[in-house]
């Protein structure tokens, strides 16, 4: 059982992170990750319960299967003045909820589970809603703060109900 204080700290951390994404403050968002971070959002397949292959797996295609350098590349595209599809800006809303915190396998790390809904309004009338579950490993760093060392994002969609994913979860 983690302390009330730790739970509150994690909740504030995740809310701050969500606001950085809503406000497209991508370089600051990258700063929330450790150098060895892995950010994985596997493709989800509509497979039967008895199918041993499972609905997602590391060997299969993924929306994101990124190191920190890969994430930096995506941010380069988002922040390029030639990213025509990002102007006017998409109005993103990241809602994070159902936060559970427990000690991680390694000392100084926390295992944090949460659910998210990403609403977006784009252009004049376009809108999309994407949602899923997350599992994070947060690491305590020397300055006393928390950083994301690992994130798993499992979308609840087999067919993505949108033309693209122009944000992070």
């Amino acid at each position, binding site marked *: 059982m983690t302390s009330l204080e730790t739970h509150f700290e994690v909740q504030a951390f995740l809310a701050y992170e969500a606001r950085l994404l809503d406000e497209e403050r991508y370089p600051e968002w990258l700063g929330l990750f450790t150098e060895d971070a892995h950010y994985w959002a596997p493709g989800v397949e509509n497979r039967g319960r008895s199918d041993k292959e499972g609905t997602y*797996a590391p060997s299969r*295609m993924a929306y994101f299967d990124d190191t920190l350098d890969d994430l930096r590349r995506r941010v380069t*595209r988002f922040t390029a003045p030639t990213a025509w*599809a990002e102007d006017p800006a998409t109005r993103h809303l990241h809602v994070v909820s159902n936060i559970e915190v427990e000690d991680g396998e390694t000392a100084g790390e926390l295992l944090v589970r949460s659910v998210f809904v990403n609403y977006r309004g784009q252009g004049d009338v376009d809108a999309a809603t994407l949602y899923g579950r997350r599992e994070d490993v947060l690491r305590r760093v020397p300055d006393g703060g928390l950083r994301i060392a690992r994130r798993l994002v499992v979308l609840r969609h087999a067919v993505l109900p*949108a033309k*693209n994913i122009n944000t992070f979860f």
Partner: protein
Amino acid sequence: MKDDLLALRDLDDGWLDRRVFWDRDVYELELERIFARCWLFVAHESQLPKPGSFLTTWMGEDHVLVVRRRDGSIGAYLNSCPHRGNRVCTAEAGTARGFVCNYHGWSFDLDGRLAGVHESAAFGREPTFDRSKLGLTPVAQLDTYKGLVFATFDPDAPPLRDFLGDFAFYLDVMLDNDEGGTEFAGGSITSVLDCNWKIAAENFAGDALHAGWTHASGAEAMLGRGVAGLSGDDTESYHVNVNGHCWEFNLDGVGNAATLGDRRIIDYLRANEARFTERLGPLRAKMVGSISSVNVFPNFSFLPGQNTFRTWQPKGPHRTELHTWVLVNRDAPEEVKDAWRKGAMMTFSPSGVFEMDDGENWELATRANQGVVTRRQRLYYGLGSDTAIEHPELPGNVHRGQVNDANQRAFYRRWSELLRAGTWDEVPS
């Protein structure tokens, strides 16, 4: 009026009627005369590794179940129970001994035959109940070309090899550059775009032009610079097409592959250049990872180098479901296959730094046609009107220059021929 539209009389002069992207009756005719008639890509053989392996996919708006049968052959059937019409398979892929309808318990074996029914005594008393006539409806023809599985609903369609024609010469660039052949990396990713399916298909058929502009930000992310110009005098590049199948390319060898930003892929292509040349000859060996794009008529596209393979499934005149896979050489080192799986997703998936900019353009290019006055304005498809050449090595209709609309015109010419023909006999060869 409709005949006039379908004839696309101004196409050779470089003009396209916008109604092809908007009208519901045009779309319904496409389902009948293109999707219920052409050979359509349904699977890669590697997705069906053993007896009982299955996947479900679309042929037009018809849902189809593709199965590896016990004898090792591949079957494809309508995924609809002949009793009340429910789907008999509700998963997108997996392994099964057979398929059972959830509604009334009718069961089918891997050959599509009706194997059993719930309350069989009641059916047994009916003189009209003939088990042999109540199996799943198979496609009319199914065939493979070097690992790719195609099917058609039309028994009169020409054989697959004739449908592909000399385009097989080009397909071998991707499918036969290595002795071990190809496979799909695991999984698939599907998304929806509110665009007409042809806007996506024609983009892959010939639109090298958009790469340098639309994808400037993606190139910045992956290469640290924009896309180099493609229309310089010293650029050796082509549009080629056969039976409406289109490939635009230059001969830089690794231009597309470089955008994946992974040294292991470039090293693999360079290390195997001599082997590609041995199998394909020097010209086609330079196409393996070059700046290029392809559409196999009507809706099966891929990008050499990035190795993204995809279908644009029609969901009404203004909606398209995009299915994507990643092709790799079966004998490539595992780390190279993995680099391709990751790289293709990083660039051409719904979250990919290149693809992200396409959907926006295609949706708005479709939606504009809602305006009745806008719809009267023809679109300009006039690039490369005098670029047709004879080439000593390249078969089919060959045009010099990658920045060209020749393939797009060929795509719509084939579209027009098929929509106007009542039977395959009437389709010009």
